[in-house]
């Protein structure tokens, strides 16, 4: 472990980082190559006339960041302990917690260990399973040369999570990873590498949180690589709820073998600037990808979200469904691409992305893209942005409900179809709660009830049940906190 922090990114700092960790030669070489790429590659600046997210990112002062934050304590900080009490997944089969640059806690159910499941901090996995890591780490799924920022990630990554699921092992309860950042002016690199052997399955949930001040913004560089081997199934959900001083760059990609399937659930609420790339490389015949996404932006947040469904194999299918709400002066650029390669016959691909703007000053630019090189293809795409519907607002207001609440109800209705597709109940609840409280302008509101057609949108324990489909009442809280 490094004992001192260094400021800025330099080749020397990189070599020192690698040396102190006793990394194998191949890894140092990989870092050095990536560093060279980073230095050679100009920062992407976007298109002329776009909303300027990439340009803003290029202007970020990378060189003032601490590239590595030593973590002296082995014990979990109190607030992380606290957050685990309210974690997205209470009934889980594994937990791994990263605090700034280090993993501080790892736990995996004994029976899974016995079945050969590996869950380790990525830097430890380098030592213990060098062949596996060398084979999969930033090779085929997210190569270092994918962009300037992936090159930086490959050069300076410190840790993250390695999950390996052997053949036929099905993990029912989700594995939770938490990333916590509270080091000011720091760069936190977190890298998740998931490999599922044939016929296995796993659910993985990632949660990103931070607290830094505006005069000392930090950067998160988050990469997720998923290798879904033959007939394996992966569900990867994440909640990015960073504070609005932190900048976030994330790349998430999956590589599919035959009949593999991966579901990504993206939920982005936080970060000052958020660059998201989510992709599915559908090489395997019969493989299937699903992306369900929700975002909510306010203040001066800037997002750029790029999705890619890359159809390569025979009869693959993909579905992308993203909805977001923009308010205040926030800006969101969405580019959703469906690419069908020449031999990808019998592809079915669908993309739908919608942005709703609650403020005249918010700006959204949603662009769907379609490149089709095969002829036996069924694909459709649609992307729209628009202001909240004034006639709908008038209708609800004519029933006595004040405008801000009418807006919330419409937003709720807008998100509901996507929320229904999110498999993790606690994530749905957390999203509803965050959206409600952000639209109310109160982050700590205790007593807000809100109900939809299927289940309650509620902040705990305010009123005892409501009229339900089955004519029954429900009077217990949605979230039951179990023991950690």
């Amino acid at each position, binding site marked *: 472990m490094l004992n001192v922090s260094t400021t800025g990114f330099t080749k020397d700092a990189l070599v020192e980082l690698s040396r102190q960790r006793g990394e194998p030669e191949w890894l140092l070489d990989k870092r050095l190559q990536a560093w060279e790429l980073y230095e050679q590659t100009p920062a992407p600046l976007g298109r002329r006339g776009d909303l300027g997210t990439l340009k803003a990112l290029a202007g970020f002062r990378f060189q003032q960041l601490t590239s590595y934050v030593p973590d002296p304590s082995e014990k979990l900080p109190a607030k992380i302990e606290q957050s685990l009490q309210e974690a997205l997944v209470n009934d889980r089969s594994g937990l791994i917690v990263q605090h700034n640059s280090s993993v501080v806690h790892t736990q995996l159910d004994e029976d899974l260990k016995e079945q050969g499941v590996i869950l380790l901090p990525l830097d430890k996995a380098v030592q213990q399973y060098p062949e596996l890591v060398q084979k999969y780490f930033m090779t085929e799924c997210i190569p270092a040369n994918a962009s300037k920022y992936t090159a930086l990630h490959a050069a300076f990554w410190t840790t993250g999570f390695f999950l390996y699921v052997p053949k036929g092992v099905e993990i029912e309860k989700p594995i939770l990873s938490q990333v916590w950042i509270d080091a000011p002016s720091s760069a936190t690199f977190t890298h998740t590498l998931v490999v599922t052997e044939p016929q296995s399955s796993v659910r993985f949930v990632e949660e990103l949180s931070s607290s830094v001040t505006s005069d000392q913004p930090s950067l998160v560089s988050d990469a997720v690589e998923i290798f879904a081997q033959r007939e394996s199934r992966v569900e990867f959900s994440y909640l990015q709820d960073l504070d609005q001083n932190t900048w976030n760059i994330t790349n998430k990609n999956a590589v599919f073998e035959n009949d593999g399937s991966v579901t990504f659930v993206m939920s982005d609420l936080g970060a000052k600037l958020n660059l998201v790339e989510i992709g599915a490389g559908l090489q395997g015949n019969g493989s299937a990808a699903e992306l369900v996404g929700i975002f909510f932006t306010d203040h001066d947040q800037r997002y750029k979200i790029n999705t890619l469904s890359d159809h390569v194999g025979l009869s693959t299918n993909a579905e992308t469904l993203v909805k977001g709400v923009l308010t205040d002066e926030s800006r969101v650029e969405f580019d959703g691409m469906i690419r069908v390669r020449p031999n990808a016959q019998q592809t079915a691909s669908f993309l739908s992305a919608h942005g709703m703007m609650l403020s005249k000053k918010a700006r959204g630019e949603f662009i769907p893209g379609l490149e089709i090189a095969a002829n036996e293809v069924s694909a459709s795409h649609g992307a729209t942005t628009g202001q909240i519907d004034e006639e709908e607002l008038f209708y609800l207001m*004519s029933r006595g409900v004040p405008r801000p*609440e009418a807006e919330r*109800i419409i937003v*709720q209705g807008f998100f509901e179809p996507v929320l229904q597709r999110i498999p993790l109940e606690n994530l749905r609840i957390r999203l509803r709660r965050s959206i409600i409280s952000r639209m109310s302008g109160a982050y700590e509101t205790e*007593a807000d009830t809100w109900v*939809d057609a299927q289940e309650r949108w509620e902040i705990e324990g305010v009123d005892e049940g409501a*009229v339900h489909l089955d004519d029954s*009442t429900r009077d217990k809280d949605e979230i039951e906190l179990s023991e950690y």
Partner: protein
Amino acid sequence: MGSELVIKNLHANIEGKPILRGVNLVVRQGEVHALMGPNGSGKSTLSNVIMGNPKYEVTEGEIWFKGENILEYSPDRRARMRLFLAFQYPMAIPGVSVANFLRRSLEAIREGNKPLEEGENPSGKASKRKTIPPGEFRKLLQEKMKLLKVDNSFINRSINDGFSGGEKKRAEILQMALLEPEIALMDETDSGLDIDALKIVSESVNALRGPNMGILLITHYQRMLNYITPDFVHVMYEGRIVKSGSKELALELEEKGYEWLKESIEENGVSANA
């Protein structure tokens, strides 16, 4: 004394185009007024302007309700004063169930004539909001549903989402029954209904009719008036009420058609309002 809705010399535009050109009308609690007129005469505009649809710009005139000039009030505040509009084309709001929304709506209505301005906690400080216990609400809702012979099923569906034309109109009337307005504006509630649905809807309106509710029934055709007998009939033409009378006026209009009206106006000019 009951509540009064008083419209004085009301002029309103949409996108700069004048639609209302000086409407005068008084509707009192307990009275049923039918407002008839050819398409484009401004009937729907009038009901929307009374409710405060921001799409329309009031350029002249006044709207008084319960002794207050409500022209500057937001639609929700007007509703909380117990003014109600049954929409001609109710909006579908997917993802929000009728029962849950109605409960919230009734809670808001019961807060009464208070401005709930933006900037303050929008739900009127949630912690202070008087909630209606679900049991009580369900009882009330079931009572109204029984009165209107509405079955349980659509209550749990999303608001107007996938509703047939008839279901939408019945849902509007159910809302009206629950919110107990003092003055209700019903905008072409009969449009798009077949004769059976029209009968059901009319029966519902008759069931709600009483000394506590004033109704302005907007309709293009006379047929709804076969089931609902109005106390007064007004005829609108080119943004003004040109003729007012008793229920016989509707029959006369039905018999002679709007052409007759046109001719009589061109001959005699605008007649005095009630």
